[in-house]
């Protein structure tokens, strides 16, 4: 068993190293206007993604459940889905490609952070089964991927407005950054809503209640309402630009609290995951 744990950790570190190399090449390509380097970074990243996918699939087979129980599995799968979501969206919306500067480091940092927790094989509690649970978890992770892209667009917007760093010239124009931040915050809002819906159906099937004001539920709702307020301000109060970007940063902080902190509170039913 120890060998398997060592292999799991070792292969993850290989993926982390590849992702770090991809990030360095990517950032260098972006800052020094080397398009070849930027393209090459995606090839390196693809190699890391394959290694990462392989280890997640193998571990799924070993544990008999998806990568969403132990902390290390949760963070690794968060990173994998965030990266996959980014890779899909950068094909659909090429102008969000520079978001790689934030998405790539977020990916390897999440995996590395996860490796500092004990690697364990955990059994799912009896209630933690069913397709609605899988959808519930998967859509929160997808939402994380989209809100990371919106974060990158918002941060770029603020940097571009406030600084004159030469490499920022390679980013899309301010109105375009603003529009992409708006659109991806909207995607995050949608995926977050789907995740909450799936979670409420799962809770209803498990306990006969669709909402219990559990801390995780409450903070998830708070985050969703905040995103709703941000979109509402943009739509009806014509908020845009730096003001909307700063407000988005606040939403992002709340989403981090909802995703990574509240589920570890002892009063939450979600803590069952980590016991």
């Amino acid at each position: 068993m120890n060998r398997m744990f060592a292999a799991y950790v070792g292969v993850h570190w290989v993926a982390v190293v590849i992702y770090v190399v991809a990030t360095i090449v990517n950032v260098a390509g972006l800052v020094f206007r080397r398009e070849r380097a930027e393209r090459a970074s995606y090839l390196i990243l693809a190699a890391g993604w394959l290694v990462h996918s392989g280890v997640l699939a193998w571990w799924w087979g070993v544990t008999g459940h998806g990568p969403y129980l132990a902390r290390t599995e949760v963070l690794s799968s968060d990173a994998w889905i965030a990266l996959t979501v980014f890779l899909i969206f950068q094909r659909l919306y090429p102008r969000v490609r520079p978001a790689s500067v934030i998405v790539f480091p977020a990916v390897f940092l999440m995996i590395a952070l996860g490796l500092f927790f004990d690697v364990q094989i955990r059994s799912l509690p009896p209630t933690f089964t069913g397709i609605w649970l899988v959808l519930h978890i998967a859509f929160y992770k997808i939402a994380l991927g989209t809100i990371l892209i919106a974060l990158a667009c918002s941060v770029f917007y603020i940097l571009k407005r406030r600084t004159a760093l030469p490499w920022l010239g390679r980013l899309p124009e301010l109105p375009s950054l603003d529009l992409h931040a708006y659109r991806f915050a909207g995607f995050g809002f949608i995926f977050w809503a789907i995740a909450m819906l799936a979670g409420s159906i799962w809770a209803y099937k498990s306990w006969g209640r669709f909402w219990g004001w559990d801390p995780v539920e409450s903070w998830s709702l708070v985050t969703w309402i905040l995103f709703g307020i941000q979109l509402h301000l943009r739509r009806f109060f014509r908020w845009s630009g730096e003001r909307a970007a700063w407000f988005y940063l606040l939403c992002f902080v709340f989403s981090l609290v909802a995703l990574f902190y509240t589920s570890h509170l002892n009063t939450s039913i979600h803590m069952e995951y980590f016991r």
Partner: protein
Amino acid sequence: MNIKRFFLSRISVISFIALLLGAVVAASVIPQEFLATPGEMAAWHQAPPGLAPWAARLGLHHLYTTPWFALVLLLTLVSLVLSSIEQCRLAFRRTFEVPAPGGGEGNSPLSEPDLTARLRRHGYLPVARGGGMLRFVKHPWGYWGNVLLHGGMVVVIASSLLIALTQKRGSLTLFEGELHLPADPWNSEENGLLAGSFVLPEPVRLDRVTPHFRPNHRISRIVSELSFLPPGDRPRRLSVEVNAMASHRGVTIYQSTDVGHAFNVEFTDPSGRREVFRLPINHPESLEEAGYNDFRFPWLPVKLQAKYLVDAERKSLRSRTPLLTIRMMEGENEAGRATLRPGESAALDMYRVRLDSVQRWTTLIFVELTGMPGVFAGFFMVVLGTLLAYCTPPRELVATAHGRGYLLRWRAAKFAEFYQEERSRLLAVLAGEGEG
């Protein structure tokens, strides 16, 4: 009209949302009576001096049942209803309106049938015509996204309120082979403000509860078989397990994750007086580990600490010979200890104890509520509405008859920059460039 304007004003709407947000945040920070343990509540009352009385005065310990929260919810609901009606009117107008005359940004020499055919190939559907103008829209359903989003929220809130007012919920710990009569009390009961007390329609009996185990001995499934016993009729047998509820005469039954063994122990005191106590203990997590519970009984002046192993031999989780250990505690001191298999007797301090029998127990949750389909239908409307609003923004093309052709005007309802290529391609195709 002024009231309607108040409820639809941007400031009112954002204020209602902000108030709801503040309430949820406050309820997350301040312990709520229905969630927190008595210990947590007591600790909160002692912690920040001066704050607790204010919290009590404002009802912040049961925030979701305070009149002011109900008022905020009601105001939000009214605003949402009016907004939904307004959005509906707007969506209908946007979908089917005949456009106002305006300038053109392209020309097309095509005839109406050719123009329509080419636009259809690009997903633009004819939705209105009049005054020499034709209007085509790609994704016209996108106009209805906000209607669904707001309407869905109305349905969710209204259904949730209905549930909160009328739901009946009770949990029962049942022991194999034993009957629970409708008049018997619940372990815990939670009823809506307008709901009466919760009474089961018929007596219910737990026939058997079977935990299933993974190879590592953790519980994977818990299956309970129970019978409802209508007087003078045949029993109605049901099976319920975690994530697979069952229904009987409007009552839905859920299996909880609580399961274990109950030990019926006979105590005989020095005077010869006998009493049988039942000691229910949660199932241990593996063969090697014990399940624990503490007990106090009026008949006994001391605390009993009990633990058990599923199998005295530690070989099988399906063993019929669990091993029970009882400690009699006087304060922090152990006054006696006895270890028993079924049928065995031993001395425990000044008492004689005998393990008469062992039976399995589990906790089941019984729920009677109306409105769940509304909650989920509302949630689906919210999700569908946001999907339509953000993923399928309508794009429209207005063709105004001009000479032998048309003047063209294009616009997107949202995110116009993303569709500039589509616009250019479309205008080129309609100008007669290529086959389209």
